[in-house]
């Protein structure tokens, strides 16, 4: 698939508040549906911002694409001025979009992917789950409590095996996603483990725990990171994160999906 970036205004075809403060925006942007892969992101600027404040575009993971309709979806939480403006946009209005950007998840043909998502971290994983339809793959979704569990239905529609945990036990297993993952990996023979790769996105402490678990079990792991970005395209070098080798990696071009062992945890 050719990874060609576009920079244009795209029409909003939906912007739905699925939970308080959490939205799914759908835009019409056929170019991105044919050039993107799971784990990549776009830089978004709400079209309803008057003037130059807030100034920067916001990075949002691609949540899902629909090639037939030319639709691209983003799952986002209102955290500041940029996302608040975005949340107020209506169907028929426009946003500026630059994408697809960055390195997505790299899934090998013969491996068994296990997707681990916490909270809003399910955003890039639904796209990945959709790409894995028909394959042997497992999805572990977690949240603090049932009401914060996101997008369970679309994940179920993929037909993949879904395991759910909530920290307060209000839905699915009681506990952390890492506990579910640990039990799952502990049941596997070493031979089976060699074929497994974990793909994870969520809060940083969760990612660190997932990586730690993968190291213990000797399982490959990719994580999707989130940072503040200015350009999203390798121009400003502002989105640096510490690398294992003492240098820096850039979330926008080396990531956002990294092989976890490349990073300094």
């Amino acid at each position, binding site marked *: 698939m050719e990874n*060609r*970036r576009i*920079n244009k205004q795209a029409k909003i075809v939906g912007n739905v508040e699925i939970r308080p403060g959490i939205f799914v925006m759908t835009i019409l942007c056929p170019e991105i549906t044919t050039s993107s892969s799971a784990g990549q992101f776009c830089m978004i*600027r709400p079209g309803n911002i008057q*003037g*130059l*404040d*807030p*100034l*920067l*575009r916001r990075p949002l993971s691609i949540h899902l694409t629909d090639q037939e309709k030319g639709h691209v979806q983003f799952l986002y939480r209102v955290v500041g001025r940029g996302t608040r403006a975005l949340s107020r946009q209506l169907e028929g209005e426009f946003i*500026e979009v*630059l994408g697809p950007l960055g390195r997505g998840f790299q899934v090998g043909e013969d491996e068994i992917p296990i997707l681990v998502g916490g909270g809003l971290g399910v955003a890039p994983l639904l796209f990945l789950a959709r790409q894995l339809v028909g394959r042997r793959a497992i999805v572990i979704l977690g949240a603090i409590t049932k009401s914060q569990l996101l997008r369970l239905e679309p994940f179920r529609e993929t037909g993949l095996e879904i395991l759910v945990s909530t920290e307060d036990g209000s839905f699915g297993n009681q506990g952390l996603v890492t506990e579910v993952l640990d039990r799952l990996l502990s049941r596997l023979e070493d031979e089976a483990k060699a074929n497994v790769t974990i793909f994870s996105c969520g809060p940083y402490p969760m990612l660190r725990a997932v990586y730690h678990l993968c190291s213990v079990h000797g399982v490959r792991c990719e994580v999707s990171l989130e*940072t*503040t*970005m*200015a*350009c999203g*395209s*390798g*121009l*400003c*070098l*502002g*989105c*640096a*994160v*510490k690398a294992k080798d*003492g*240098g*820096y990696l850039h979330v926008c071009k080396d990531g956002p999906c990294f092989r976890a062992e490349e990073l300094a945890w």
Partner: protein
Amino acid sequence: MTSHTEKEKKEPDLKVKLGPLILKNPVLLASGTCGYGKELKDLIDLKRLGAIVVKGISLEPRKGNPPPRIHETPCGLLNAIGLENVGLEAFKNEKLPWLREHKLRTIVNILGNSVAEYQKMAEGLSGLEGVDAIEVNISCPNVKEGGVAFGTDPRAANEVTRAVKGACDLPVIVKLSPNVTDICEIARAVEDGGADCVSLINTILGMAIDIEKRRPVLGNVFGGLSGPAIRPVAVRMVWQVARTVKIPVIGIGGISNFQDALEFLMAGASAIQVGTATLVDPGASEKILTGIVDFMVRNNYSSIGELKIRD
């Protein structure tokens, strides 16, 4: 169909002369906001622009400052990247060939820790095919040694300029810091040192505090402020410097649209650089160029120089 009464609109002459450096138009990409060019290749037509000023390079590679490196402020961006760059050798071997192949007018921004280092950089770039000019960065606020230390002292600024000028056969632009009491004094010093041109302004030193964590936001504590927030300061400084030195001035500072660019060209700049706006919208520079041309046609300006306010 054109009516007989309407004045004939001629395509304006966009050419600009920056000392010995002649560019086809006055819109340049600012250092640190356009990578080494290639990063933008599929997003804009780089050939349309006057020139690109590549990410500042140092003699040795630098890994840059610890994160967080950027922070958004009202109409602005604070950054403390710390001049992360590939170093002179890798630039020559890995970055320059692409720029040369695509025949892009390339200005190389250089930074050193000492006068000797600036001199070595100039020697290393001299005579290289594909390098059109050097922009001497004596104004980066985000590195410990060098950089701004040379940009705030007229004698040191003069010395660095002389050293670079003496070490190469390239047009030399010196990029000035606004973090001084009198920018005209520094401009005069680099003009005396033989600079062919000055560019201004670099970022304004600033900082932000995370009140929840009760600590500075940036890993480097201080950072450089850029974006529309600093534009009026930059326009004022360009106005002053253009009336102080005889060498051409390149205006930089928060240019986001063609109107902003025209302010600088009217204040006395011979060309402008687009920086932070490219980070927000990679296509900003092309839109600015188109806007300048349309404005000149609409108002019957025939050359960039005509835009300058004479007093």
